[in-house]
């Protein structure tokens, strides 16, 4: 390498280092922007109401009043709400993942009459916005099947394939697995369900976890459907409980923020445990389309 080229390389390296440093600074600034609201909410939840209204506001509470949480829990039945939310989420995740896997397998591997039509209907429904079917479904569940004030209208749809998007995801994943594996198993005399459960399912575990996570996130973020189907306060979910709690305590910000923080906690905890799958999963959806 010539002397001049070497010099150029060296100056490029130095330039890269400066650029990386600037990048880091900008990233840190944005990270602060993202985390700050959460911190502000948390720090408010530990303050007295007098301290909240102090000017200028302080970044840290003077005393960390964890007793606010105890006070909040007297009105905000967090554990009950969490339990209710889980009653909806857990069966939905399990059933949605299971049925999406069955359907995805049929579309990816099996030959049958009408496949193209059914696949087209399935993909077409992916573009159908969920809010369009809200009213007819409400009428169907409550008037048709008499399910008033029940979790079933929220859970049962996940027994029907877990949504077209999830079927699509599983199907794409199965298509990418080499067929030789199931052919070898066929020669050994394995039936279609044997192949599905002993070969396909272990190979697509990451995709199944992703589907379960998506269903979790969808239900976790939902407020509209829960509001429509659930009426009595002992059946409230976290989202409903918090919305209702805020209505009752409009001005008591420290307790409202304590309730908000409690509602944040399960999601954050869940995320910390399953971070790897979250990131992998989101990445998958972007890449597989």
């Amino acid at each position, binding site marked *: 390498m010539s002397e001049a080229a070497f010099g150029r390389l060296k100056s490029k390296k130095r330039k890269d280092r400066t650029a*990386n440093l600037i*990048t*880091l600074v900008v990233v840190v600034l*944005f*990270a602060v922007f*993202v*985390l700050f609201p*959460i911190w*502000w909410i948390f720090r408010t939840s530990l303050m007295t109401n007098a301290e909240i*209204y102090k000017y200028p*506001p302080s970044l840290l509470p003077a005393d960390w009043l964890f007793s606010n949480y105890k006070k909040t829990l007297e009105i905000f039945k967090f554990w009950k709400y969490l339990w209710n939310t889980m009653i909806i989420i857990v069966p939905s995740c399990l059933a949605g993942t299971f*049925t999406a896997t*069955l*359907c995805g397998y*049929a579309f990816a591997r*099996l*030959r*049958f009459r009408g496949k193209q039509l*059914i696949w087209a*209907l*399935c993909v077409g*429904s992916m*573009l*159908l*916005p969920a*809010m369009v*079917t809200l*009213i*007819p479904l*409400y*009428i*169907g569940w409550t*008037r048709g099947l008499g399910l008033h004030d029940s979790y079933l209208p929220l859970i049962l749809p996940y027994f*029907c394939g877990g949504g*077209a998007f999830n*079927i699509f995801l599983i199907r794409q994943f199965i298509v990418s697995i080499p067929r030789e594996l199931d052919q070898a198993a066929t020669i050994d005399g394995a*039936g*279609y369900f044997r192949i599905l459960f002993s070969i396909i399912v272990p190979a697509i575990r990451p995709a199944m976890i992703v589907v379960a996570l998506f269903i979790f*996130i969808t239900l*976790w973020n939902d*407020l509209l459907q829960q509001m429509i189907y659930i009426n009595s306060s002992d059946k409230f979910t*976290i*989202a*409903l409980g*918090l919305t209702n709690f805020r209505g009752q305590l409009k001005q008591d*910000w420290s307790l*409202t*923020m304590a*309730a908000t923080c409690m*509602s*944040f906690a399960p*999601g954050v905890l*869940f*995320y910390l445990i399953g971070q790897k799958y*979250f*990131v992998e999963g*989101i990445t998958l*959806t972007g*890449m597989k*389309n």
Partner: protein
Amino acid sequence: METIDKSPRRRSHIYASEARVAYICLIPAFIGLIFLTYLPLLSVLGISLTNWTGLAAPKFVGIDNYIQLFKTDPYIKDSIIATIYFAVLSVAGSMIYSLFIAMLLNRKIPARGFFRAVFYVPYVLPAAAIYVGWSWLYEANFGFFNFLLSEVGLHKVLFIADSSHVVPSLSLISVWLAGNLIVIFLAGLQNVPSVYHEAAEMDGANGWQRFRHITLPCMTPIIFYNLLMSLIANLQVVTPALSLTNGGPGNASRFMTYLMYDQAFVNYKLGYACATTFVIFAILAAFTGVLFKTSKGWIFDEGGDDK
């Protein structure tokens, strides 16, 4: 795309059993597609032609609901404007923000995994709690943002309590929530072949030129995917109105889905609400259609390695 095998007759018994298994596997999807998707879609159209309130038997009224919706409804126009305003701000904001952050995270910086996790956190918080939490930051007198404004000597702003600021304020929250877009963009950036960048660098291309002529074209399929998903999601926005603003102040945040909710579940005008639903559906379809139509022009197809 699959094609149906035209199989030799002697193997047809195998296909018969294969098809039987397939139909068994697809029973849930059949039920879902018929009873949860396409039948409800048709019935929206059907119910929208009646005056059903849920009490008396529905009476056929033709397109009266649609006429009333466009001629005398006090909310629909504001509602469409508010929704499109919100969606455009949120989609544009979160696309730019998330692509920018993803590009930063794609550089060699320490603790990249940690930062990626940080940007993703808002996405795992329940939406209802996010809006309640942010309502405190936006509070008119003691909220954090007003503290900042008064520090730099500006007047206080009412944010979500002010009809001209409520939509931008809510959009900022949805930009803040765009962590999943960042993760998808980041994965896409890592798939851009580095040989392209190296070759361009040899030829003396600067950073902007490389971004414009290599990164951006390679990223177009992912940009399209993110754009489509966030557009559909943001046009259906309803949670902030339900949990925070109740469509106000005035009608400034009476988003279309909230309007539909209000007509159907607060005022029990089911027929009328279905007409609204159908109008919203048409608007959403128009947006999606335009996006698909133009996509052929700007999506760069590398050809080959993606099936």
